[in-house]
């Protein structure tokens, strides 16, 4: 069966995404690039790890996304005493009906913000693994599906490592992208200061797309065409990370697949039904960087991010893109 789909489908997808994009841009000022990446992750069904300092709009971003598409949003503040059941839910005995009833945890939402994920114990962190991977929670032998679409926004502080449990590589690999918000531009920040908004609960966003629209977009993204030479290009990039002396280990096969899916989603976001090398290039950093570990550990997260980004940039410039 051909992967090709019709022009009206592409046009409709572009319009939907454009509405979503404009809606989010109205709420999050000066972060167009981050918004595009988040939308890309959403369409490709991935999860996002946002590494940044507190107070730069991470929660607002997740909340605005949830509200824009009429989705359930929940937030979990990860702390060292947080239990897995606090995340996934717990079965409690109901006296009235004389049996155990499953009380859903905060993970049963469409957009879940796992704030400061590295402050929780590895056990709690790993409770997110299954749900991130399969979109399902298993408690007492019972499997419960979470909402669809489902997207985890995890955040962590790249500087303050005191009392944290760094995410294991296996869990890092399950995030499609690692993003950085960064401080807004002065003009954008002035606009934020002018607004009377206080906290994300005060954000009044009306939904512009439905959940079914998002599911349809996710299904469409998988059919975006990738020409062989672009696949070759992805493979070369991934292979280069495996032979690069600065990295302890290269990108996994899952990482390569993630880059492919993200590139397909970005193509759809740009209103194309085919991937161009530029899609791959623009996503290589966000998709691959957090999957790479340096041979010589850096002083902190920011330094490590910088070194990995430099090595990736070198690889990107060394490998010729398909012309």
């Amino acid at each position, binding site marked *: 069966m*051909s*992967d*090709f789909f019709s*022009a009206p489908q592409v046009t409709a997808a572009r319009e939907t995404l454009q509405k979503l994009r404009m809606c989010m841009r109205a709420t999050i000022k000066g972060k167009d690039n981050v918004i595009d990446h988040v939308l890309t992750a959403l369409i490709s069904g991935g999860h996002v790890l946002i590494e940044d300092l507190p107070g730069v709009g991470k929660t607002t971003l997740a909340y605005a996304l949830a509200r824009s598409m009429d989705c359930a949003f929940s937030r979990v503040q990860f702390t060292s005493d947080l239990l897995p059941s606090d995340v996934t839910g717990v079965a409690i005995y109901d006296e009235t009906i004389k049996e155990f009833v499953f009380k859903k945890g905060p993970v049963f939402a469409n957009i879940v913000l796992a704030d400061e994920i590295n402050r929780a114990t590895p056990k709690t962190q790993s409770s997110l693994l299954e749900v991130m991977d399969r979109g399902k929670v298993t408690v007492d032998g019972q499997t419960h599906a979470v909402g669809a679409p489902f997207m985890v926004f995890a955040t962590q502080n790249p500087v303050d490592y005191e009392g944290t449990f760094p995410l294991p590589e296996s869990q890092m690999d399950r995030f499609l992208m690692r993003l950085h918000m960064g401080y807004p531009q002065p003009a954008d920040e002035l606009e934020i200061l002018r607004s009377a908004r206080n906290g994300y609960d005060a954000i009044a966003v009306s939904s512009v797309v439905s959940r079914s629209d998002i599911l349809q977009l996710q299904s469409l993204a998988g059919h975006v*065409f990738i*020409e*062989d*030479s*672009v696949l*070759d*290009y992805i*493979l*070369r990039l991934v*292979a280069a990370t495996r032979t690069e*002396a600065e990295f302890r280990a290269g990108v996994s096969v899952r990482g390569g697949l993630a880059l492919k899916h993200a590139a397909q989603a970005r193509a759809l976001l740009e209103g*194309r*039904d*085919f*991937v*161009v*090398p530029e899609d791959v290039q623009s996503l290589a950093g966000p998709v691959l960087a957090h999957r790479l570990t340096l041979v010589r550990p850096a002083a902190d997260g920011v330094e490590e991010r910088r070194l990995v980004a430099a090595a990736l940039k070198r690889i990107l410039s060394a*490998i*010729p*893109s*398909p*012309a």
Partner: protein
Amino acid sequence: METLRPQLNLSELRQLRWFLGGLIGLLSAWTVFYMEVDALVVLGVITVAVPVFTLFPRLSIALPQVFHLLAFPVIVVLFALDIWATREPLPAMIRLDLMLLCYRCIAPRGRREDLQLILLALFVVVVTGVFTVSIAFVAQILLFTGAALSLLLAVTLSDGRTGGGPISPAKPARRFLPQLSAAPVAAAEAGWERVSWFELFGRLRAVADLRVVALGAGLFGGVVALSVVLFLALPRFEISNDFFLDRLITKSTRTGFSDNVTFQDVVNIQQDTSVALMIDVSDPDMIPAEPYWRMLVLDEYSGNGFRVSQGLRNTFLSSREKMHVHTTRGWGRNREDRATWVMYFQPGVSKYLPLGGAFTRLTFGEPQALLQSTPLRLAQLPVEPAKMVAYRVEGMDTDGVLRDRDFARDRRIRVSDPRASFMPPERMADFGYEEPPARDVTFLELGLERPEDVAQLEKWVEELGGAGDGGAEFARRAATWLQSRHSYSLSMRLEEAEGDPLIRWMKSSQPGHCELFAGGLVMLARAAGVPARLVTGFKGGAWNPVSGSITVRNSDAHAWTEIWDDDMASWLRADATPGSQITPTPSPTSGFRGLEFESGWSARFDGLRVFWYRRIVNFDQDSQLELLRGTKDRVRAMLQSVRTAVEEKLRAFANWVRSPWDVPRVAAVATVLFGGVGLVWFWKRVGRAWWMGWRSRRSDSHRRDPVRIEASRWLARLERAERAHVPVEAREAMRAARARLLRLRFGAREGWPPPAAVFRQAKHAVRELARARARR
């Protein structure tokens, strides 16, 4: 368009290096076959062991440690014994090198050992290169160079994989066995000895980028071509004769052209069909009908053959060799013909140079030590050459008549004064002679021990009517008589009996070979008082139409007689062997058409060999000038013919234009013009798109899809155009063109817009941009 190339891993690179090392070892060791170095044992071991160890590297790993510990001391001891026993340093060094090479090929190798292997192999190849001029060696050295470069590349790639670190340690734990110091490298190469060659070469084919291979081959070919150009253009000089190495290798005679020829020797040579001599003639029409190539004159009958007597050696063969002869003058009759004969004399035949007869000038390509016998018309090298010798002969007599005034004078004295034959040399002056006149005695000695045999000979001479009417006439009668009694055969069966074998054969009716006929004629002539001698050399040859040269093989070896004729005052060739002309006819030349023609692959190969000798081996300054002149003349002639053709066409066109233009003619021209324009238009609008679409549908790979390739070209062009400022009015057109081109380049085929329209749109966009820029 980029494609992904998988890379060979360290283990595969190690296997490749192992294979290339074995190949280099074999290729270089086998070059020793071109030299006369006695190294058959080592060569045999290499020929068996190296392929086996190369194909099964596990054997190499399994070699016990004691083998590595003992190998070097044993090799050194063998070398010392070799030197002590043979006293020949170079062959011993070559054998030493072969032993080391053999060890290096079968013992495990790291990077350092690979480089040692290349050096050892290079030594053998360079030494062989000094000695040999074989064309097969050229192919071998080209292959060797390619393999050595590939090995170096594989070593470099291995270094690249290990980050430039050593593959083998500086101080290995086991002294003679290279170890892998870096643990990751050892892990990466672990199990390399379990090799599946089929899979390895499959992988090699998969990783080989054809463009890189083509580039490498192109560069290699370029270097070879440059070397050829340099070879052709540089001033000529010859070092081999001054090079000491060739004197360190002595060569033994393989065939029987020596000073002592026993019956059956020439027949033995005839069994060998290899090439003995190649002859390049400037004028093929000067080739005689029956060419004879004289090499050696033998006078003394020994009872079982003929040999050069001591008297002949003292009297006629110069004992003092001339050193560094480049050109020597001969005794030719300075005939009008300007034919030059370039002889390429193969090694292993004889030290006597084949010649047609007397000559005016003999020139070597390089200065040469030479012994020359003026009376016998012979030229001899001091030792049998170890490599091909090329020499040019001018004014060569090929008519079988050798004039000898001195001999004629001596003979007149002896015939008029029989005492002169027996007088001691020191008393010559007493009889009024300045020098010994008895030099023909050696050509009259019968050398028969039994008087009965002598009597038998005299009886036959009497039957033949004596030699009163001259040597030539007697030779004809005697040869006819011999041919009437014996037929020709290479095998001769003479029953054991008392008496001289030659006389017994003459008495019988057994068939015989050329030496017997020639010997019989010599005996009959001498018994009749006519000086006669046996000559060995080659008769005939075959014409090679590929190279335009004569090929003389060892199977053309022959023996014949030279008989003295007083009237002509000459030695006259007389060939008593059946099937030959007994004495030469007055107009003996018939050109190359009189010879047999060679055909088939062997003729092509021989032709190639002659070309090799002509243009490469024997390429002296004259040849260089000749080639340059020839090239210049050919280029001139080509340019002239092109110019003439163009002028002719232009004239014809002018005439055609000038001729009257009537309506049908105008209509015809207009039809052709419009038809042509229409065809071009149709091709651009429809044909090209259809052709591209057809090829695109047929292409099984994205890489070969012509539409994608064309789109890629246009995208690159647009990108170049957009590097400078793009005016606002042109931006939209550029953006739209780019978007559609991107769809053609990277999109699914089903969603393609019409390619031809997209390319037109891109063309318009580029033009629009140029116009917008011009307007500003």
